[in-house]
């Protein structure tokens, strides 16, 4: 009895979560310019449209570039902090950690205003670096969490063993800590990349007029009228997301990376 209830619950939720994805994918294959679902006269015309339209392609490229750089910057901020907390129990680092968490939890629209104000005050509004840095700091709590988990997972006996086998501090870092941390680092990168790629309001406020990312272009299009071309972008992002997280799951232990039990226990 309860098994049936559980199945029904999971099924409904799965449907709920999948519905928009299905709708968007379906519309992208629509043969006409209207937003029809289920798609009529299925065709790839909008895909062609998307990839040949310089406006969409530059928005896509821009989004990807911003996301990539933001993720690198975020990790460059997160790694030293996480290491300082784990290795030195540094209170300064823990304070920075707290600050980072807070900036993630602030209402997004407020954050966007705050950064708009900030970059304007610097007289530097409207540049791509603004978006990159803003995203990096807002999302830094994600690699902080994953890398923190990574450090926590290091068994101190491994470090003792390495030292008795002749490793100096730097050797320990290189030969023991790095291989263990790496998957967590990568997952942190992927998280920031994906969230930055899709982030709208901060990107818009900070540099929207000059720097048109894909979500911004979609929103602008929304106001002017629908075309299924927008959905192509959505499908692309979906695929990227599935590929990205799927790759992490394939190579690493996804449950463990998210803080859960590891394989073979429980």
């Amino acid at each position, binding site marked *: 009895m309860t098994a049936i209830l*559980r199945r029904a619950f*999971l099924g409904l939720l799965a449907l709920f*979560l999948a519905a*928009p*994805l299905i*709708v*968007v994918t379906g*519309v992208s294959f629509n043969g006409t310019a209207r937003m029809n*679902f289920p798609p009529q006269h299925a065709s790839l015309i909008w895909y062609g449209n998307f990839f040949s339209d310089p406006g969409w392609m530059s928005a896509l490229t821009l989004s990807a570039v911003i996301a990539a750089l933001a993720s690198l910057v975020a990790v460059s*901020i997160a790694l*030293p902090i996480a*290491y*300082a907390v784990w290795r*030195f129990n540094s209170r*300064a*680092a823990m304070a*920075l950690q707290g600050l980072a968490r*807070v900036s993630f*939890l*602030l*209402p*997004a*629209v*407020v*954050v*966007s*205003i*705050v*950064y*708009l*104000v*900030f970059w304007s005050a610097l007289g530097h509004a409207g540049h791509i670096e603004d978006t990159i*840095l803003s995203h*990096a*700091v807002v999302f*830094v709590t994600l690699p902080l969490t994953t890398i923190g988990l990574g450090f926590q997972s290091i068994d101190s006996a491994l470090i003792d063993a390495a030292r008795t086998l002749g490793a100096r501090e730097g050797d320990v870092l290189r030969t023991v800590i790095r291989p263990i941390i790496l998957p967590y680092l990568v997952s942190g990168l992927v998280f920031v990349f994906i969230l930055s*790629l*899709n982030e*709208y*309001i901060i990107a818009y*406020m900070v540099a929207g007029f000059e720097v048109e990312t*894909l*979500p911004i272009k*979609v*929103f602008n299009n*929304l106001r002017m009228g629908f075309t299924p071309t*927008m959905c192509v972008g*959505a499908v692309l992002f*979906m695929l990227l*997301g*599935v590929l990205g*997280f799927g790759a992490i*799951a394939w190579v690493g232990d*996804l*449950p463990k990376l998210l*803080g*859960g*039990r590891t*394989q073979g226990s*429980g």
Partner: protein
Amino acid sequence: MRRWQLSVLLSWPALATLALTVVPVWLLLRISIAPPDPAAPWGAGLTFEAYRSLLAPDSIHALRRSLQLAVVVGIVSVGAGFPLTYFITRMQRRAQVGWLVFLLATLTLSDVLIAFSWQVMLSKRIGLSRIFVALGLMQQPDSLAPSVGAIIACLTYLVIPFTVLTLYPALSQLDRSLIEAARTLGAPAWRAFTSVVLPLTRVPTMVAFVLAAVLTLGSFVPPVALGKPEHWPMSVLIGNAALAGHNLPRAAAMSVLLLVVTALLALGAVRAVRHRPTP
């Protein structure tokens, strides 16, 4: 050896974090007491006009709507997200990973796209209303948006992956032998759940709720796209004041208010978790 190395190590992170959190917030406060200026982002001088406008009925209602929305979305998303996470952590590894990738993938869609796809789904022509007619819940197909329900549905959709990710560590690491002990002591499955699992996960549940509420408070696009002006919460007013109204001081003042509300919400949640008597 330690101290200077530590300073060097943390110099860049500290610079980046402090520059981009403390400074902007201070600026926000400063702007909120400046007069608006059509020619520049904000004008010179000092005025409390922006804060005074917060007392207008418009703003009060918007704030009320923000809070209502936050609480409802928080409850719905945790209400659905908790059992979902619980079931996921009980699954075989393959299924678990599948669900996790699926949830993470839904994160890939920008709230703009999600709002848009909900618009499509709820429109007269396309989707959901036709199903409701077939089920006998509605007389005839009609557009289900813009409406409050639409906003709630969309926001819940956006927030659930975060809820699951927040609850996942705690539920995954749950010591099953505690539940088994409760069962052997005579508790039926349901009671074992409420008397063992819920108390143990009080904190992450509260964190998930606060996260859901805060994400809702800050959300701009879904309410704009799926709600009528009379449904708009404070976040929309802030966005509009900045973009269309060119009134940064007003946006700043409203932001400060929203920040205060958020902080109070978080504090309230922490209190609630700490002071609940043990069952």
